[in-house]
Protein backbone atom coordinates (compact mmCIF):
# COMPACT_ATOMS: atom_id res chain seq x y z
CA UNK A 1 0.00 0.00 0.00
CA UNK A 2 1.23 3.47 -0.79
CA UNK A 3 2.37 5.37 2.30
CA UNK A 4 0.07 8.35 1.91
CA UNK A 5 -2.91 6.11 1.35
CA UNK A 6 -2.07 4.25 4.56
CA UNK A 7 -1.54 7.51 6.43
CA UNK A 8 -4.91 8.87 5.40
CA UNK A 9 -6.65 5.70 6.54
CA UNK A 10 -4.71 5.68 9.81
CA UNK A 11 -5.62 9.27 10.60
CA UNK A 12 -9.25 8.59 9.80
CA UNK A 13 -9.24 5.58 12.10
CA UNK A 14 -7.94 7.63 15.00
CA UNK A 15 -10.39 10.40 14.14
CA UNK A 16 -13.32 8.00 13.85
CA UNK A 17 -12.54 6.30 17.17
CA UNK A 18 -12.46 9.67 18.88
CA UNK A 19 -15.55 10.96 17.13
CA UNK A 20 -17.86 8.07 17.94
CA UNK A 21 -16.72 7.89 21.56
CA UNK A 22 -17.00 11.67 21.79
CA UNK A 23 -20.54 11.32 20.50
CA UNK A 24 -21.45 8.68 23.09
CA UNK A 25 -20.15 10.88 25.90
CA UNK A 26 -21.95 13.93 24.52
CA UNK A 27 -25.21 11.98 24.88
CA UNK A 28 -24.64 12.04 28.62
CA UNK A 29 -24.90 15.81 29.02
CA UNK A 30 -27.27 16.56 31.93
CA UNK A 31 -27.54 12.84 32.72
CA UNK A 32 -24.55 12.37 35.02
CA UNK A 33 -24.83 10.81 38.50
CA UNK A 34 -24.09 14.25 39.94
CA UNK A 35 -23.28 17.62 38.52
CA UNK A 36 -19.50 17.57 38.99
CA UNK A 37 -19.28 14.29 37.10
CA UNK A 38 -21.41 15.73 34.29
CA UNK A 39 -18.70 18.29 33.66
CA UNK A 40 -16.01 15.62 33.79
CA UNK A 41 -17.64 13.46 31.12
CA UNK A 42 -18.40 16.35 28.78
CA UNK A 43 -14.81 17.47 29.21
CA UNK A 44 -13.61 14.11 27.95
CA UNK A 45 -16.04 14.47 25.04
CA UNK A 46 -14.58 17.87 24.20
CA UNK A 47 -11.04 16.52 24.25
CA UNK A 48 -12.04 13.67 21.95
CA UNK A 49 -13.72 15.95 19.43
CA UNK A 50 -10.58 18.06 19.45
CA UNK A 51 -8.61 14.97 18.52
CA UNK A 52 -11.18 14.13 15.84
CA UNK A 53 -10.80 17.54 14.26
CA UNK A 54 -7.00 17.34 14.23
CA UNK A 55 -6.97 13.91 12.60
CA UNK A 56 -9.66 14.71 10.01
CA UNK A 57 -7.87 17.92 9.07
CA UNK A 58 -4.58 16.06 8.71
CA UNK A 59 -6.21 13.33 6.61
CA UNK A 60 -7.73 15.97 4.36
CA UNK A 61 -4.40 17.73 3.92
CA UNK A 62 -2.58 14.55 2.99
CA UNK A 63 -5.38 13.56 0.63
CA UNK A 64 -5.21 16.97 -1.02
CA UNK A 65 -8.74 16.87 -2.49
CA UNK A 66 -10.11 19.69 -0.37
CA UNK A 67 -12.15 17.51 2.00
CA UNK A 68 -12.74 19.27 5.30
CA UNK A 69 -13.21 17.94 8.83
CA UNK A 70 -16.96 18.27 8.38
CA UNK A 71 -16.87 16.39 5.07
CA UNK A 72 -15.38 13.43 6.93
CA UNK A 73 -17.74 13.74 9.89
CA UNK A 74 -21.00 14.42 8.11
CA UNK A 75 -20.75 13.08 4.59
CA UNK A 76 -19.47 9.53 5.01
CA UNK A 77 -21.74 6.57 5.59
CA UNK A 78 -21.32 3.64 8.00
CA UNK A 79 -19.15 1.47 5.73
CA UNK A 80 -16.68 4.34 5.30
CA UNK A 81 -16.18 4.82 9.03
CA UNK A 82 -13.26 2.82 10.39
CA UNK A 83 -13.74 3.07 14.14
CA UNK A 84 -13.56 0.01 16.37
CA UNK A 85 -16.77 -1.46 17.74
CA UNK A 86 -15.79 -0.55 21.30
CA UNK A 87 -16.68 3.09 20.88
CA UNK A 88 -20.13 2.38 19.46
CA UNK A 89 -21.25 0.50 22.55
CA UNK A 90 -24.04 2.34 24.37
CA UNK A 91 -23.52 4.32 27.53
CA UNK A 92 -25.63 1.92 29.60
CA UNK A 93 -25.15 2.75 33.27
CA UNK A 94 -22.24 4.70 34.71
CA UNK A 95 -20.31 1.47 35.16
CA UNK A 96 -20.64 0.68 31.44
CA UNK A 97 -19.53 4.20 30.54
CA UNK A 98 -16.45 4.07 32.76
CA UNK A 99 -15.50 0.51 31.71
CA UNK A 100 -15.59 1.52 28.05
CA UNK A 101 -13.58 4.64 28.85
CA UNK A 102 -10.97 2.73 30.80
CA UNK A 103 -10.28 0.25 28.00
CA UNK A 104 -10.12 3.04 25.40
CA UNK A 105 -7.99 5.42 27.41
CA UNK A 106 -5.47 2.86 28.64
CA UNK A 107 -4.93 1.68 25.07
CA UNK A 108 -4.59 5.18 23.68
CA UNK A 109 -2.35 6.23 26.54
CA UNK A 110 0.14 3.56 25.57
CA UNK A 111 -0.29 4.24 21.85
CA UNK A 112 0.24 8.00 22.16
CA UNK A 113 3.30 7.47 24.37
CA UNK A 114 4.94 5.64 21.48
CA UNK A 115 3.42 7.64 18.66
CA UNK A 116 4.79 10.93 19.96
CA UNK A 117 8.21 9.87 18.67
CA UNK A 118 6.94 9.25 15.16
CA UNK A 119 9.09 10.67 12.39
CA UNK A 120 5.91 12.11 10.90
CA UNK A 121 5.76 15.55 12.51
CA UNK A 122 2.00 15.84 12.39
CA UNK A 123 1.41 12.46 14.02
CA UNK A 124 4.07 13.15 16.63
CA UNK A 125 2.60 16.53 17.56
CA UNK A 126 -0.90 15.10 17.64
CA UNK A 127 0.19 12.25 19.89
CA UNK A 128 2.07 14.53 22.28
CA UNK A 129 -0.96 16.78 22.76
CA UNK A 130 -3.43 13.91 22.96
CA UNK A 131 -1.25 12.05 25.44
CA UNK A 132 -1.85 14.77 28.03
CA UNK A 133 -5.60 14.57 27.55
CA UNK A 134 -5.67 10.79 27.49
CA UNK A 135 -3.56 10.55 30.65
CA UNK A 136 -6.29 12.45 32.41
CA UNK A 137 -9.10 10.36 30.87
CA UNK A 138 -7.28 7.24 31.97
CA UNK A 139 -6.83 8.52 35.49
CA UNK A 140 -10.46 9.52 35.73
CA UNK A 141 -11.97 6.30 34.42
CA UNK A 142 -9.56 4.04 36.30
CA UNK A 143 -10.22 5.80 39.59
CA UNK A 144 -13.94 5.26 39.02
CA UNK A 145 -13.52 1.57 38.23
CA UNK A 146 -11.63 1.24 41.51
CA UNK A 147 -14.36 3.03 43.45
CA UNK A 148 -17.16 1.08 41.85
CA UNK A 149 -15.34 -2.21 42.28
CA UNK A 150 -14.40 -1.55 45.89
CA UNK A 151 -17.51 0.42 46.80
CA UNK A 152 -20.77 -1.28 47.68
CA UNK A 153 -21.96 -4.78 46.86
CA UNK A 154 -24.25 -3.32 44.23
CA UNK A 155 -21.55 -1.26 42.56
CA UNK A 156 -19.22 -4.25 42.58
CA UNK A 157 -21.52 -6.53 40.62
CA UNK A 158 -22.59 -3.71 38.34
CA UNK A 159 -19.03 -2.91 37.35
CA UNK A 160 -18.21 -6.62 37.09
CA UNK A 161 -21.08 -6.94 34.60
CA UNK A 162 -19.88 -3.88 32.73
CA UNK A 163 -16.34 -5.24 32.44
CA UNK A 164 -17.62 -8.66 31.34
CA UNK A 165 -19.58 -6.97 28.56
CA UNK A 166 -16.86 -4.64 27.34
CA UNK A 167 -14.05 -7.18 27.52
CA UNK A 168 -14.94 -8.53 24.07
CA UNK A 169 -14.05 -5.20 22.52
CA UNK A 170 -10.49 -4.66 23.60
CA UNK A 171 -8.64 -7.06 21.30
CA UNK A 172 -9.80 -5.18 18.20
CA UNK A 173 -7.68 -2.20 19.26
CA UNK A 174 -4.60 -4.33 18.70
CA UNK A 175 -5.56 -5.64 15.26
CA UNK A 176 -3.13 -4.93 12.47
CA UNK A 177 -3.77 -4.94 8.74
CA UNK A 178 -2.06 -3.66 5.63
CA UNK A 179 -2.49 -0.05 6.76
CA UNK A 180 -0.65 -0.70 10.00
CA UNK A 181 2.02 -2.93 8.47
CA UNK A 182 2.82 -0.30 5.84
CA UNK A 183 3.24 2.44 8.41
CA UNK A 184 5.12 0.23 10.90
CA UNK A 185 7.55 -0.76 8.17
CA UNK A 186 8.08 2.92 7.36
CA UNK A 187 8.76 3.63 11.04
CA UNK A 188 5.85 6.04 11.27
CA UNK A 189 3.72 4.26 13.86
CA UNK A 190 4.52 1.82 16.68
CA UNK A 191 3.62 -1.85 16.50
CA UNK A 192 0.78 -2.22 19.01
CA UNK A 193 2.09 -5.68 19.90
CA UNK A 194 5.02 -3.99 21.62
CA UNK A 195 2.84 -2.45 24.30
CA UNK A 196 0.17 -5.12 24.63
CA UNK A 197 1.63 -6.46 27.87
CA UNK A 198 2.02 -2.95 29.25
CA UNK A 199 -1.66 -2.37 28.46
CA UNK A 200 -2.59 -5.58 30.24
CA UNK A 201 -0.46 -4.71 33.23
CA UNK A 202 -2.09 -1.28 33.51
CA UNK A 203 -5.53 -2.83 33.35
CA UNK A 204 -4.64 -5.55 35.84
CA UNK A 205 -3.47 -2.94 38.33
CA UNK A 206 -6.86 -1.28 38.17
CA UNK A 207 -8.74 -4.56 38.48
CA UNK A 208 -6.66 -5.49 41.52
CA UNK A 209 -7.37 -2.19 43.26
CA UNK A 210 -11.03 -2.58 42.30
CA UNK A 211 -11.12 -6.08 43.88
CA UNK A 212 -12.25 -7.56 40.55
CA UNK A 213 -10.95 -11.11 40.45
CA UNK A 214 -11.69 -12.16 36.92
CA UNK A 215 -13.32 -10.81 33.82
CA UNK A 216 -15.12 -13.12 31.41
CA UNK A 217 -13.63 -13.61 27.99
CA UNK A 218 -16.18 -13.87 25.23
CA UNK A 219 -16.41 -13.10 21.56
CA UNK A 220 -13.62 -10.96 20.13
CA UNK A 221 -15.02 -7.96 18.28
CA UNK A 222 -13.69 -7.26 14.80
CA UNK A 223 -14.66 -5.57 11.57
CA UNK A 224 -14.67 -1.91 12.52
CA UNK A 225 -11.51 -1.11 10.58
CA UNK A 226 -13.13 -2.33 7.37
CA UNK A 227 -16.45 -0.62 7.97
CA UNK A 228 -18.35 -3.59 9.43
CA UNK A 229 -19.82 -2.12 12.54
CA UNK A 230 -22.26 -3.07 15.26
CA UNK A 231 -25.94 -2.27 14.77
CA UNK A 232 -25.47 0.84 16.87
CA UNK A 233 -23.66 2.72 14.10
CA UNK A 234 -26.88 2.75 12.08
CA UNK A 235 -28.52 4.73 14.86
CA UNK A 236 -25.57 6.95 15.69
CA UNK A 237 -24.81 8.42 12.28
CA UNK A 238 -28.36 9.43 11.26
CA UNK A 239 -28.62 11.51 14.41
CA UNK A 240 -25.12 12.91 14.19
CA UNK A 241 -25.45 13.85 10.53
CA UNK A 242 -29.14 14.75 10.47
CA UNK A 243 -29.00 18.50 9.88
CA UNK A 244 -26.55 18.69 6.95
CA UNK A 245 -28.30 15.67 5.41
CA UNK A 246 -31.73 17.27 5.74
CA UNK A 247 -30.55 20.62 4.40
CA UNK A 248 -27.80 19.73 1.93
CA UNK A 249 -28.08 23.04 0.08
CA UNK A 250 -27.38 25.05 3.24
CA UNK A 251 -23.96 25.90 4.59
CA UNK A 252 -23.37 24.75 8.16
Amino acid at each position, binding site marked *: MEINEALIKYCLRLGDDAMILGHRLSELCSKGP*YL*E*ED*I*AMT*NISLDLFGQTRMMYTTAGEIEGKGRTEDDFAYKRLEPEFQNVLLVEQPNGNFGNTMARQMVFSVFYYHLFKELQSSSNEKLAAFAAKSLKETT*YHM*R*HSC*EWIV*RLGDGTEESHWKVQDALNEIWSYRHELFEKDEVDETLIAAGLIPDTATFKSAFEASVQEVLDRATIEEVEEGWKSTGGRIGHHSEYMGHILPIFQSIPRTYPESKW
Partner: protein
Amino acid sequence: MSADNQFPQWEVFIQSKTGLPFKHVGNLHAADGELALQNARDLYTRRQEGTSIWVVPTDEIVASNPDDSDAFFDPAEDKIYRAATYYNLPKEAKHI
Protein backbone atom coordinates in the same frame (compact mmCIF):
# COMPACT_ATOMS: atom_id res chain seq x y z
CA MET B 1 -36.90 11.08 48.21
CA SER B 2 -34.73 9.40 50.78
CA ALA B 3 -32.15 11.41 52.65
CA ASP B 4 -29.41 10.98 50.14
CA ASN B 5 -25.72 10.35 50.29
CA GLN B 6 -24.29 13.80 50.69
CA PHE B 7 -20.68 14.11 49.62
CA PRO B 8 -18.48 16.20 51.91
CA GLN B 9 -17.66 19.72 50.79
CA TRP B 10 -14.17 20.77 49.77
CA GLU B 11 -12.74 24.28 49.43
CA VAL B 12 -10.69 24.82 46.28
CA PHE B 13 -7.53 26.92 46.01
CA ILE B 14 -5.83 27.59 42.69
CA GLN B 15 -2.32 28.79 41.98
CA SER B 16 -2.47 30.54 38.65
CA LYS B 17 1.29 30.53 38.03
CA THR B 18 4.19 29.00 39.91
CA GLY B 19 5.46 31.39 42.51
CA LEU B 20 2.12 33.07 43.05
CA PRO B 21 -0.06 32.50 46.12
CA PHE B 22 -2.93 30.03 46.06
CA LYS B 23 -6.29 31.80 45.81
CA HIS B 24 -9.62 30.55 47.08
CA VAL B 25 -12.01 30.15 44.15
CA GLY B 26 -14.98 28.31 45.59
CA ASN B 27 -15.99 24.85 46.67
CA LEU B 28 -17.50 21.61 45.45
CA HIS B 29 -18.75 18.24 46.70
CA ALA B 30 -16.77 15.04 46.25
CA ALA B 31 -16.48 11.70 48.01
CA ASP B 32 -12.70 11.83 48.43
CA GLY B 33 -9.62 13.92 47.75
CA GLU B 34 -8.73 12.36 44.39
CA LEU B 35 -12.21 13.00 42.97
CA ALA B 36 -12.25 16.47 44.55
CA LEU B 37 -8.98 17.27 42.79
CA GLN B 38 -10.26 16.04 39.43
CA ASN B 39 -13.58 17.84 39.79
CA ALA B 40 -11.77 21.02 40.82
CA ARG B 41 -9.63 20.79 37.71
CA ASP B 42 -12.74 20.38 35.52
CA LEU B 43 -14.71 23.10 37.28
CA TYR B 44 -12.15 25.81 37.95
CA THR B 45 -9.38 25.51 35.38
CA ARG B 46 -11.13 25.14 32.04
CA ARG B 47 -9.84 28.52 30.91
CA GLN B 48 -6.23 27.94 31.93
CA GLU B 49 -6.80 29.63 35.27
CA GLY B 50 -4.35 27.45 37.14
CA THR B 51 -1.21 25.36 37.28
CA SER B 52 -1.72 23.87 40.71
CA ILE B 53 -4.71 22.99 42.88
CA TRP B 54 -5.28 22.45 46.60
CA VAL B 55 -8.50 20.95 47.89
CA VAL B 56 -9.22 21.08 51.60
CA PRO B 57 -12.25 19.57 53.37
CA THR B 58 -14.44 22.49 54.40
CA ASP B 59 -14.65 21.03 57.90
CA GLU B 60 -10.89 21.36 58.27
CA ILE B 61 -10.94 25.10 57.68
CA VAL B 62 -10.57 27.09 60.89
CA ALA B 63 -11.98 30.55 60.28
CA SER B 64 -11.95 33.75 62.29
CA ASN B 65 -15.31 34.81 63.62
CA PRO B 66 -16.70 38.06 62.16
CA ASP B 67 -17.88 39.03 65.65
CA ASP B 68 -14.23 39.02 66.72
CA SER B 69 -13.03 41.26 63.90
CA ASP B 70 -12.70 44.28 66.15
CA ALA B 71 -10.43 42.46 68.58
CA PHE B 72 -8.60 40.57 65.88
CA PHE B 73 -7.93 43.26 63.34
CA ASP B 74 -8.41 46.79 64.66
CA PRO B 75 -5.34 46.78 66.94
CA ALA B 76 -3.17 46.76 63.81
CA GLU B 77 -4.66 50.08 62.78
CA ASP B 78 -2.48 52.35 64.94
CA LYS B 79 0.79 50.54 64.44
CA ILE B 80 1.75 52.50 61.41
CA TYR B 81 5.41 52.23 62.37
CA ARG B 82 5.29 48.81 60.73
CA ALA B 83 5.23 50.55 57.35
CA ALA B 84 8.38 51.74 55.65
CA THR B 85 6.82 55.12 54.89
CA TYR B 86 6.69 56.01 58.58
CA TYR B 87 10.39 56.81 58.69
CA ASN B 88 12.07 60.11 57.70
CA LEU B 89 15.55 59.57 56.36
CA PRO B 90 18.11 61.91 54.82
CA LYS B 91 17.34 62.16 51.12
CA GLU B 92 20.97 61.63 50.17
CA ALA B 93 21.16 58.12 51.65
CA LYS B 94 20.84 55.48 48.92
CA HIS B 95 19.64 51.87 48.89
CA ILE B 96 17.67 52.12 52.12
